[in-house]
Structures are given as structure tokens and as C-alpha cells.
């Protein structure tokens, strides 16, 4: 520990006094959360508020023969029942996705995944709505379904998306098959294939990063309230990106954006699940516009898990080519991406496979090629970046596992293999074979420090001893050692590369200092537990010299917060 200079001491005292960066400030959010005084969407009650609930398909793939809402409408307390037939004249039975596809708001002629939304009941309370959804009579004609993405593009595969079956060009280029969404390629295929054909050693493995669900503890929900007299819509909701939702709602409803007020209050976890727009939001908005009353929609856990955006579902055939001594020469990856029934992937628009091309990872790999095929299946649509930026977890999983497999084949320690292949400090800024430029890094030092901190050599020895004892029958316990070296693109930028539906990705902050010396600061981000109210104030306190306790941080209200692309996390 270095001796503190007078300047260090002064700085540290200043930090403590201001509760600025570097001090352990207790979270201001916790005062209300520990007292049950958070303000989550379902806590909000408005006079005259109605409640919406969905009728959902039991089938994964079926034609809708008929929908009869008579019995539901006759139930006392039911105000309206919406079907695609009601939304179609408004052009709202489909909505655009963030990935350039369209997604059914309410199923019109077909259902494409189990629990897909078929009708929206609006009633006086949630109990009546729950009864009413059982009274909507839907006749289905079940069709064979596809749940294996490898079967999506078979010649005899049933066509899932009849609504776009004649479109041979999708948002990201030509489609090879009616169930194909896009092919995305990057890198030098010819050069890569050439290296592979001549290499001493190659490995090839299929890694499946299976479909998971972000499953925040609070499900997705909203309240739409249309003021017909002023012609203004207020929409509260679980929105990680409130301004984007405002823009999307404006685009699909035709309401001018300046007359839409979106408010994301406290959110009970997001993890990517609350980035996109869901049928519940659209139907609540339509319901409120038609009925002139607030409409609340709160999904239950089964609805959340089976219909809102999943994460991952990447099938990655990963190959490395190397010399006998363990120098990696090339990487070749093909990904089959299962997007479910609609491509609702929340990636920056130019990146249908997110930043999967970070898959050369932390290593100096001179040539590489990546191709990604996205396909439709009869599953819920998506995916999102669950707790990580766009597809980077998938990419890192692929390269790190591949390095382990290669090490095993070479009979080499995998830490040693990594050290041999890291991008060296003097190589920065480094242009990777698949396009990204890495600005800085010293990977070998980081690796060495980690290995020293856990006494890696000793662990490997312990592992070897345990294996021997196991072989001799002396123990049933063996030991695994896992290494993962994670190079991540954090945040979506720069703007020239990253946009959402044409809105360049950026962030914004607005700081206002009051005459009496306190501050209100608003950002275009939106915390769902990250603690922005506490930490942003610390940053401003350090920079401006005003105590953090005198700084109020606000997010989530699109009327007052400057435009931003929200917070993913």
C-alpha cells in the first residue's frame, strides 16, 4: 500500500464529504425499497382503470378457423374483446420488431407458438378478465410444428410465416427458404478455408447456448391511458428504453410523438426482457384509445416465460486451426440462430447477429470467417441480450470452449495455450480479423495476476493428484478447473455502427443547478436495479463539487428526460 500524499488525503476527504466517486455511498433507492414504497407499474391505480388479459393459443402451430367472442362479451363486467379483426383496420394487427421483421399483435389466420396472443379481453377487474378469457371460443386446425431449428430449412418443412412467404428478401438480405430469416457473414472465407485445409491441427465442436429466459422477478406490464380530449396518451410500463417505446408507439399508432408520454417507474429487474415492445402494450394502448379509459395489463409468470423475449438459442459450430505448437492460425464459425416465430431480436439494427463477430475473443487470430443463419421455429420470438451486450456471451462461450478443446487435443495446458495466443500489449490498437478494433489491453498480465491469485499451478497439481487417486479407486471426488477470458464490447456504439430502427444509439444527460445550490439531473438511461440514483449523483458530486445528497437523479419519464436508448443490463 502506497504512502498517501497530502493531495491523496485531500482528495479522499473531499470524496467522503461529497459522497463522490470512490466512497461507499449507501443507495438512496434502498430507503423506499426496504419500506415497500417502491412505485412499480402494478402499484399504480388510476380512476376508472380497466384490466386486460389475453386469450392464448394452446397450439404451437395452427390455423385459426374461427374466434367467437359472444360468451365473453356477455359476461358482466367485460367491456370489450379485441381480436386481429379489430386491429387490422387500424393497421395494428402486426407491429414492427426491432430486427426489421413484423410480429403479430393478435394472431390473424395462424398461430405460430404456444401461448401466442389471440384475443385481448378488457374488463372491470382482473378477476373478471380471468374468467372472460375462458369464454372466448377459438376453433383451431392444428398443423405440424417445427421446434428443431435444424429442421426449419428442410425441403419438406411446413411454411411458418405465410405472411411473408413471397418475400425472398428480408430486412437483412436474401432469404434461402421461407423459414429462413437472414444470413450474415463476415471475414475472409476463402483465406480461412485455405488455412484450415493446410493446418497441422484442427478442432471442430458444436456448442449449443440453449434458450434461456431473463425472468426478472417482476413480469412485463403496462398501463395505457388515453386522454381523448387532449389527444394525448400516457403509457406507464416496464420499459428499459422508454424513449424507444415512445417512438415505436408513435410509429405504430399514428399518434404524434410529442403527444405521447411514456413513464417507466421503478422496474423489478429487466435483464433484457423489458427492452422490446409486446402485444400487451399495443393492445392496452388500443383499448385505451377506443374506450377512453386507462387499461392495465399485467402478465403472469407463465406468460412471461413462454411468450416474452428469450435469450441465446445459438447453435455454434466452431472450428480452430492451429500449428502443432499451439499457435492458432484461423477460426471458422457457423451459427444457426433460432429466433422463434418472429425475429424480435433486440440488437442494433445493422447487426442481426449482434456482435457475435467478437468471437475471435482475446486472441491474435490472423484469419477468420463467421456466418450466421437465422431461422424461424414455432417458439416465442426474440432474442435479447440477457445480462450482457448483444450476443457477446455466445461468442465468448464459443471461443473459450474451443480453446479448451484445442488444448485438450494438443495435450497442452489451456492457460498456456491462451498465453501463447493472446493479443500482445504492443499490438494495440488491434484490428481483429472479424472487424472490431480493440483499443487497449494487457491480457498476459491480467492472466498472470489471476493465475497467481488462485495459485493455478497448485490447483493443477491438486487436480492431477485427485485424478490419480480416483483411478486407484481411493476417492470418488475429482476436480475441474474452468478458465474463461472475456473480452467484451460494453455498450452499443459508436452511433455510426449502432442504431435502433434508425435512431442512432447514444446517451444523454441534462444537469440543472438550482439557485440554492442543489441539482436535478436527468438521463436517457433507465435503471432496473442498477442504482443510477445513487451512482450518477456520485459522479456529478465529484465533478461539480456539490454533495451527492443534494443531487436528485431522474430517469424514465420521456417528457423530462433527454432522449436516450435506455439501459439493457
Amino acid at each position, binding site marked *: 500500500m502506497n504512502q498517501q500524499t497530502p493531495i491523496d488525503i485531500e482528495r479522499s476527504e473531499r470524496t467522503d464529504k461529497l459522497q463522490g466517486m470512490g466512497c461507499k455511498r449507501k443507495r438512496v433507492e434502498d430507503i423506499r425499497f*426496504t419500506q415497500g414504497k417502491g412505485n412499480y407499474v402494478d402499484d399504480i391505480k388510476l380512476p376508472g382503470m380497466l384490466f386486460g388479459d389475453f386469450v392464448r393459443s394452446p397450439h404451437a402451430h395452427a390455423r385459426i378457423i374461427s374466434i367467437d367472442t359472444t360468451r365473453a362479451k356477455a359476461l358482466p363486467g367485460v367491456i370489450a374483446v379485441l381480436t386481429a379483426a379489430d386491429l387490422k383496420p387500424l393497421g395494428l394487427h402486426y407491429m414492427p420488431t426491432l430486427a426489421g421483421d413484423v410480429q403479430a399483435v393478435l394472431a390473424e389466420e395462424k398461430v405460430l407458438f404456444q401461448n401466442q396472443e389471440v384475443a385481448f379481453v378488457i374488463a372491470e377487474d382482473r378477476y373478471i378478465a380471468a374468467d372472460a378469457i375462458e369464454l372466448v371460443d377459438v376453433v383451431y386446425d392444428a398443423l405440424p410444428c417445427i421446434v428443431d431449428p435444424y429442421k426449419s430449412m428442410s425441403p419438406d418443412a411446413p411454411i411458418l410465416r405465410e405472411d411473408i412467404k413471397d418475400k425472398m428478401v428480408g430486412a437483412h438480405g436474401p432469404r434461402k427458404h421461407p423459414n429462413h430469416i437472414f444470413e450474415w457473414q463476415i471475414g475472409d472465407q476463402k483465406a480461412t478455408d485455405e488455412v484450415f485445409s493446410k493446418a497441422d491441427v484442427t478442432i471442430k465442436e458444436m456448442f449449443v447456448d440453449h434458450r434461456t429466459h431473463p425472468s*426478472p422477478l417482476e413480469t412485463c406490464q403496462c398501463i395505457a391511458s388515453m386522454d381523448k380530449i387532449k389527444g394525448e396518451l400516457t403509457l406507464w410500463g416496464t420499459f428499459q428504453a422508454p424513449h424507444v417505446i415512445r417512438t415505436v408507439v408513435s410509429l405504430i399508432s399514428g399518434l404524434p410523438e410529442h403527444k405521447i408520454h411514456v413513464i417507466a417507474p421503478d422496474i423489478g429487474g429487466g435483464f433484457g426482457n423489458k427492452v422490446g415492445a409486446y402485444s400487451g402494450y399495443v393492445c392496452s394502448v388500443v383499448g385505451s384509445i377506443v374506450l377512453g379509459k386507462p387499461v392495465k395489463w399485467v402478465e403472469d409468470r407463465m406468460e412471461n416465460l413462454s411468450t416474452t423475449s428469450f435469450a441465446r438459442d445459438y447453435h455454434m459450430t466452431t472450428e480452430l486451426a492451429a500449428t502443432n505448437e499451439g499457435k492458432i492460425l484461423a477460426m471458422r464459425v457457423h451459427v444457426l440462430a433460432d429466433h422463434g416465430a418472429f425475429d424480435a431480436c433486440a440488437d442494433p439494427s445493422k447487426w442481426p447477429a449482434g456482435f457475435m463477430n467478437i468471437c475471435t475473443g482475446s486472441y491474435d487470430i490472423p484469419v477468420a470467417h463467421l456466418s450466421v443463419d437465422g431461422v424461424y421455429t414455432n417458439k416465442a420470438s426474440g432474442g435479447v441480450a440477457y445480462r450482457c451486450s448483444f450476443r457477446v456471451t455466445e461468442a465468448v462461450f464459443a471461443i473459450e470452449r474451443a480453446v479448451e478443446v484445442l488444448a485438450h487435443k494438443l495435450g497442452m495446458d489451456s492457460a498456456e495455450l491462451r498465453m501463447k495466443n493472446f493479443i500482445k500489449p504492443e499490438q494495440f490498437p488491434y484490428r481483429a480479423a472479424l472487424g472490431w478494433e480493440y483499443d487497449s489491453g494487457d491480457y498476459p498480465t491480467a492472466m498472470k495476476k489471476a493465475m497467481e491469485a488462485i495459485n493455478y499451478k497448485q490447483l493443477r497439481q491438486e487436480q492431477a493428484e485427485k485424478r490419480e487417486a480416483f483411478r486407484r479407486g481411493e476417492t470418488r471426488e475429482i476436480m475441474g478447473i474452468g478458465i474463461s477470458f472475456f473480452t467484451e464490447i460494453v455498450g452499443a456504439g459508436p452511433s455510426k455502427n449502432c442504431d435502433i430502427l434508425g435512431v442512432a444509439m447514444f446517451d444523454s444527460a441534462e444537469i440543472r443547478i438550482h439557485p440554492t445550490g442543489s441539482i436535478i439531473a436527468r438521463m436517457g438511461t433507465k435503471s432496473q436495479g442498477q442504482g443510477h440514483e445513487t451512482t450518477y449523483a456520485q459522479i456529478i458530486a465529484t465533478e461539480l463539487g456539490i454533495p451527492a445528497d443534494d443531487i436528485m437523479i431522474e430517469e424514465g419519464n420521456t417528457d423530462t428526460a433527454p432522449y436516450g436508448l435506455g439501459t439493457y443490463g
Partner: protein
Amino acid sequence: MPKKQISLTVNGRLVEGLVEPRTLLIHFIREQLNLTGAHIGCDTGHCGACTVEMDNMSVKSCMTFALQADGSNITTIEGVANPDGTLSALQEGFRMMHGLQCGYCTPGMIMRAHRLLQENPNPTETEIRYGIAGNLCRCTGYVNIVKAIQYAAAKINGTAFPEAAE
């Protein structure tokens, strides 16, 4: 179907309400009593976000009908602060030890911990972990939740909790 009258004590006050037999206790608390601290996370009795204290028991209020609570004594998160309005030891512990992020599981966690510390005023770490097994958190990874409860136990017992100083 005619509604039924119930009468119970909530956070020390006598309350009355009219409920259907099927009205869940969580909805009675949140919608009729406007106590929105208890939350619905899973609706199937797994996550514990709806936990309240009822007749000296930790109860998942989404798994209970309001009618079953007729005549009972209930405490919700809104009722655990000290009489002078300061945070209870548990509420303070959760704040001091960073035992929450989004806050959604927190009222249920605190209500369960509240009962746990009455069952066992000096729990070991293992006893705490088993003791909150009916409460799920998607944000924190539980380590700081355990520390928050240890902090509270130490404060209530008047013993030292070294990690609190950090």
C-alpha cells in the same frame, strides 16, 4: 356470488373488507388495503415476493385466500419500521450491506427474515440460507442478502458484525 365480510388486524390496525371467496390475500392487501409492498413474482408459490407475516407465521399471500385470513393478525413490510419511523434492523441491514438491487424481492425477503430471526435469533450463515429458501432474488446472488440478515441479527442481539464496518 355474494361477497363475504372479513375483519382482521393489519399492521396493528383493525381493517374490514368485502371479498369474494376466491379473492387472494395478496390482492386484498395490494388492491383493497393499498399496501403495495408485497409483490407478485411467480404466482405459483415459489418466489416468496408475496410473503407477509400472519399469526406468527411466514405466509405466501398469493397462496392464501383472504377469507382464510379472517380474524388473523397480519404484518406487512409497511408495518416493520420502528415506531419512531426509523428503519428496523433488517431494513437498515439490507441497505447497509447492499442486499438489494431492483427491490422487488426485498419486502418478501425482509418479512421472511423478520420471522426467521424470531424463530432463531442467532442463526448461522447456513441456517440463514436454509431459512430464506422460500424467497428468490434475480438480481443479487444472495450473498449480500445473507449479510444483511447477519447485520440485523447482530444489531438486535447487540453483538458485533465486523463486515458492517466495510
